[in-house]
């Protein structure tokens, strides 16, 4: 309790800490928002909750890690930042291909089943993938050095790692590309039509099965991008996927489906909330605050709907 009060006091005495927490929250949050957007896309269009989301991200991280290792050995003179940037499309393609295989083998068979089935099936996939990565890539922490320095301001009171800045920038750029695809391409229009009314879309001549496959692969690409960002901003480890799954989950619950602006806001908001909660209540409680927000938010929504005699379903 005293610790909590003194942490609060610290925020008051040194207001710049607030700024640091806020900026770091925004940067980290934009990466989470990207992953969550992929989850919301699959959830909204296909009615599938992809628990393997985090494992896909980690897989993307490994793809980027091995590509950069390989390429920088080949051309040791080049600046690492080039390889970091180049690793993004490579990881995106690799995970998109993998996602397509998962779709063809498993997801396509559970499309019309209960959402609960998708939770279990993708949990099984997550388990398989994480254990396979553990066997193949070992449990060693992997990290990519982007070569960017930490930017310090206000006499070292506000420190922002350059890699985070780059990661957030790349995340935002990816999000913009996806929004453009969703809004203006035929593929994006077909996805939106299918998510609104799959039967009507089918009657209008849209091959909904193909749309589902492409949506799932697009989510894979998003995870690949996020994974290569995570590889140089945080670390890559076979069992770390669950962090990203659960955070995306919380973000999607907060934001609802199908609205990218809401997903981005929720992603940023959650990261800021989590950073402050971690600072005030101690890092050991940071995760508890993230996960508890899901039942709390759902309970509040339930009580509001109850007044209209409706149910949260």
């Amino acid at each position: 309790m005293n610790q909590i009060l003194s942490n609060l006091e610290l925020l008051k005495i040194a207001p710049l800490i607030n700024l640091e927490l806020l900026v770091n929250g925004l940067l980290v949050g934009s990466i989470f928002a990207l992953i969550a957007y992929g989850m919301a896309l699959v959830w909204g269009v296909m009615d599938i909750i992809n628990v393997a989301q985090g494992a896909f991200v980690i897989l993307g991280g490994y793809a980027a890690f091995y590509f950069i290792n390989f390429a920088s050995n080949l051309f040791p003179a080049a600046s690492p930042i080039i390889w970091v940037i180049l690793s993004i499309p490579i990881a995106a393609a690799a995970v998109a291909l993998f996602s397509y295989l998962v779709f063809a083998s498993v997801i396509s068979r559970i499309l019309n089943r209960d959402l609960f089935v998708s939770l279990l099936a993708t949990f099984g996939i997550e388990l398989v993938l994480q254990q396979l990565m553990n066997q193949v890539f070992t449990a060693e922490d992997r990290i990519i050095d982007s070569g960017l320095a930490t930017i310090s301001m206000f006499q070292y009171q506000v420190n922002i790692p350059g890699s985070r800045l780059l990661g957030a920038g790349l995340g935002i750029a990816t999000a913009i590309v996806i929004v453009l695809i969703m809004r203006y391409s035929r593929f994006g229009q077909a996805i939106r039509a299918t998510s609104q009314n799959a039967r009507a879309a089918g009657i209008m001549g849209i091959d909904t099965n193909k749309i589902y496959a492409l949506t799932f692969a697009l989510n894979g690409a998003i995870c690949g991008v996020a994974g290569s960002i995570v590889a140089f901003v945080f670390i890559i480890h076979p069992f770390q996927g669950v962090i990203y799954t659960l955070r995306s989950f919380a973000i999607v619950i907060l934001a609802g489906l199908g609205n990218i602006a809401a997903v981005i806001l929720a992603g940023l908001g959650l990261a800021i909330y989590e950073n402050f909660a971690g600072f005030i209540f101690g890092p050991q409680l940071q995760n508890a605050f993230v996960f508890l927000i899901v039942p709390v938010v759902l309970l509040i929504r339930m009580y509001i709907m109850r007044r209209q005699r409706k149910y949260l379903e």
Partner: protein
Amino acid sequence: MRTWQTNIATLVILVFFLVAPFLFPNNMSQLSDLMIFILIALAWDMLGGQMGYNSFGNVLFFGIGMYIVASSEVILGGFKLAEYTSAMGGNQGSFILTPSQYLIGFGVGIALASIINFFLGLLIGSQFLQMRGHYFAITTLAIGVAAAEVARSIPIIGAGSGMNFPQPPDGVPLFHILYYMGLALVVLFFIFLSWLYKTRFGFIMNAIRDDEDKAESMGLPTASIKSTAWAISAFVFAYAGALYGSAKNFIDPSEVAFPFTTIGVWMILMAIMGGMGTIWGPIIGAIVFQIFKELFWTYLFGWQRVALGLLIVIIVVFFPDGIMGAFNNWKKRRNLQNTAKAKT
């Protein structure tokens, strides 16, 4: 299923379980795990299979039950919980219980755990069971995950480094006790459920699964039925958790107490494997699952979790009706064939 054949089969299985410790004295930990699995599969299916409320969060009661028993053993052994947990680093030697202290602590603890979790289940259920469908599943999942994180931050129960159970004193046949206590509740719970599913209470649980709005619009007391069923299941989960923790002799917040990636998924997998919504399904599912699991751990060591993940995917995607479902379908087909034959 109420023929003399099933009665005899039930009797044979019961006798087998009663003598199993003598047949397989070297597999007591697997056998006591099996009893725990049967309990949680039955308790999960009561909600998921019979009432249509698929929950991931029952590990909440499982873990709380475990912590209560461990604490009860420490406190009734005459020690201070805070001293015990803070000293667990190396000098476990100074916290020695006599056999009677140990057994009293265990007995009182398991009773307390079950009863406290029953009421906790009523309390939580009355709110969260107002959610429907996948929102309920998601919320319970989040609660299960959050429980582990919260437990990690409570120093008096060992926080992130977990909590050891007091060492069972020499001469206490721990696994035999755990096994027979598990078996006792399995038998009682089985009898209870066989009866419950034939009462109006059980009927209304089925009605909630098939169409809850309809049941409510007929004036049936759906809310209190749901909370009560959830509380009964919480009672069993706490009991099972108490046994499981005692068997592992150590509580890790996320690996043992609130293991949403193992027990939290296995309970569902066992029910699906055996056949959801049947009384024998979860029992058969638990037995088959335990055999699979032990085979994986023995013959596929290193790859056992990969195999387990594949098993989950295969069962959920390809065999959602489970063993009892396949059996009932086979019986139905045979009856149809028989009637067709009788007609010609």
